[in-house]
């Protein structure tokens, strides 16, 4: 019963958030200078005739008052119709459905890799001496700070050009996804490792860890029974943000590695002012973010039921 009402509240909140996002996108698009009709007809270079522009305006209701346009836009979204891409003249939903698996695959794989790297780094740093800890901090900061485009280029130079181990562009194989996933994962792992190490060190030196040792637990047991959970919580909290950065990171990474995907489509859509496409991808990203947050909250409730109930911790 509690789960049902919790879910109902969250879905309601998500709907309101999506509406706000949709509205912001609508306003933002209308604020971009330039004639949307021109964009529909293929941009300023296409030199479309005045009649053709007028026809486009008519077709896309661009002559209506803004509020009417807004209502039409929302009406479309509610029925699940994301509109037709100006550039490709195909339904946005269809294009996104084609692009989604590649991006989702990339994002999920890089998330898993980021968690693994972060956890290893945190565990090693937490167990080592002061010099090791300091080095760990440096590595974390550097990892967190490198931009995707530079890291991607470096990985290509090292692993494709010099060593020739891995392909530099998407080949549709397992090897093809390693470099792009690493490019997304490494900066993320830097952030996650910083968070994890802090709480790991705190947990491993807390009274309950001492109590565990006092009842005969080995360091490994203390680590997995206590340290791990405490380390995972704050990083888990950031997972919604991590997914969001991965998707925006995918814009760069898909371009660098010439991978088809949502990120690359978004970049193309923005450049060609393909508004329905931009709207669709932006809304979809927001939706993914909300779904991830829901999942994260559920996992947190399993790890830390007291906090989920709102008890005083």
């Amino acid at each position: 019963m509690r789960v049902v009402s919790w879910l109902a509240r969250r879905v309601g909140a998500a709907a309101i958030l999506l509406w706000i996002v949709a509205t912001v996108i609508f306003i933002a698009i209308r604020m971009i200078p330039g004639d949307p009709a021109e964009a529909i007809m293929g941009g300023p270079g296409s030199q479309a005739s005045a009649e053709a522009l007028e026809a486009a305006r008519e077709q896309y209701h661009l002559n209506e008052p803004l509020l009417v346009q807004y209502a039409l836009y929302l009406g479309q979204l509610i029925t699940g119709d994301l509109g037709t891409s100006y550039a490709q003249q195909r339904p946005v939903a269809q294009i996104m459905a084609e692009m989604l698996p590649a991006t989702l695959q990339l994002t999920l794989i890089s998330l898993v890799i980021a968690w693994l790297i972060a956890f290893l780094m945190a565990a090693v740093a937490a167990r080592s001496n002061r010099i090791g800890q300091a080095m760990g901090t440096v590595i974390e900061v550097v990892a967190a700070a490198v931009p995707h485009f530079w890291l991607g280029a470096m990985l290509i130079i090292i692993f494709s050009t010099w060593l020739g181990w891995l392909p530099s562009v998407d080949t549709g194989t397992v090897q093809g996804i390693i470099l792009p996933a690493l490019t997304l994962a490494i900066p993320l792992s830097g952030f996650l490792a910083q968070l994890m190490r802090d709480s790991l060190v705190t947990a491993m030196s807390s009274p309950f860890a001492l109590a565990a040792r006092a009842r005969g637990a080995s360091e490994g047991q203390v680590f997995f029974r206590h340290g791990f959970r405490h380390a995972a919580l704050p990083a888990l909290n950031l997972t919604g943000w991590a997914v969001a950065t991965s998707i925006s990171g995918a814009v760069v990474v898909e371009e660098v590695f010439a991978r088809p995907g949502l990120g690359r489509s978004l970049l193309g859509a923005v450049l060609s002012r393909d508004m329905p496409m931009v709207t669709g991808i932006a809304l979809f990203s927001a939706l993914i973010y909300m779904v991830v947050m829901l999942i994260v909250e559920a996992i947190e409730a399993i790890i830390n039921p007291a906090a989920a109930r709102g008890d005083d911790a």
Partner: protein
Amino acid sequence: MNTPAVEIENLSVTFPGPNKTRIEAVKNVSLTLTPGKALGIVGESGSGKSVTARSLLGLTSGNVTADTLNILGTDATRLTEKQWREIRGNKVAMILQDALNSLDPLRPIHREIADALPGSRKQRKQAAVEALYSVEMPEPALRAEQRSPQLSGGMRQRALIAQAMIGSPSVVVADEATTALDTRLTRMVLDQLAQLKDQGIALAMISHDLAQIAQVADDIIVMRHGEIVESGPTEQLLSNPQHDYTKQLLAAIPSGVARFAPLSQVATTEAGTFENFRHPADMRKLTDTLAIAVHGLSKTFGDHAAVSDVSFSVPQGSTLGLVGESGSGKTTTARMILGLERPDTGSVSIFGQHFAPAKESDRRDLRDQLGAIYQDPLASFDPRYTTSQILINALSGGTTSRSRHYHKRALELLDLVELDSSLLSRSPRELSGGQRQRLAIARALAPKPDILVLDEPVSALDVSVQATVLDLLDRLQLETGTSYLFITHDLAVVEHMSDQIAVMTHGNLVETGTAQQIIHEPSHPYTQQLIAAAPDWGPRSRR
């Protein structure tokens, strides 16, 4: 005579210090634990008592050397980590202090208690429930499923004892197991520790509180700076202490010490240069003027009545001690008096003038008459401020923290609380606990308040430091005529500091009277319980 369970000779523990030095945390400590007997190890922070205790389980990170370290017939000087793990929990167990984090807040209690046991998950859980039952945990089966944030302090301490006992150890080390507990919980834990002795367990009880140790221990070791300064049978050590430090510790226990009689002795004042202050006789001329008058205060949070219909008054120049266990509503009452929490009903007046509930602008002039001091002064200082900035900020009413104009007053304040002027440039983090609390007092005194509200002002301090701070508060009251509302859970402190005592429980004020009345002839059943649970401190009758 039993064969000893643990024999230690010349135990030393060193830690690496700065610049390749070694810090000697424990120096040449020898002790013996006997089955069915309890050894009390008393010392203040930094005395090495906890390090000594942990070396019984091989849990110090420092370098441990000893001529003899015999644990239940095993030579423990050269045990491997794996062999130590065989001993921990099964032969030697530890009871930790109830801090919120002594039980992992993310795991159910039964796993925290029994995860070291062999057997299936179900069997371990059953064993945990039985262990909880044997420490008289209410609803053990339900509690076993819960996590530590859902338990009360008393339940957590019971769970910690169950955790230690589940492996049927022969030696139990109780490390500050009664610290930070309310009076009745302390009594409960002391009783349970005494039961362990009856079960033939060799008990080592570590505490900073001599009065509590004396309730259980057969022999006592007094430690300071890593060394044993005195040891002997409890009765002998208490009645005929030889070492000055032991005498100091005994004198610092406020229980039964007459009002305004000094608790601290020269050697313990941290300021160093100050002469021991001999308190003059109580020359106060108390009038009928009421510094604080509280009438019918109530406050409800959600559906929880934190404070219900509380009325009391503090005559000018006197001290009212407000006693209660945690959750009794005493801090909420203080917050309403300070105007930090708006009462649902009732009112507060300061020297006959209406103070709460009121609009902030209407009572701003009265604010300077009220000062507040809390348990953790460090948390109430801006971490970027130096001592001087903290004082100047308070002196200027928050308008500046740097003006030289207030320098002289800042020095006077430091002098008033017996702190050295060289501390002006220091950060409060560099000060000791006692110095911080003095600084907090100095800051509270900056606007020359007529009233101080003190919420557990000495609860986090070592006994000898507590003594110096209490002496300071006494002196300030005699010199300045400041009225105190002194809030604490510690009966001994409140008895020594108060003219009148008010007792709160569950948001209700159950009894008010003179300190004499409340301590010696309590009339309300709750007060009677409370007084009965307090350590039966021998020296009280001797003085």
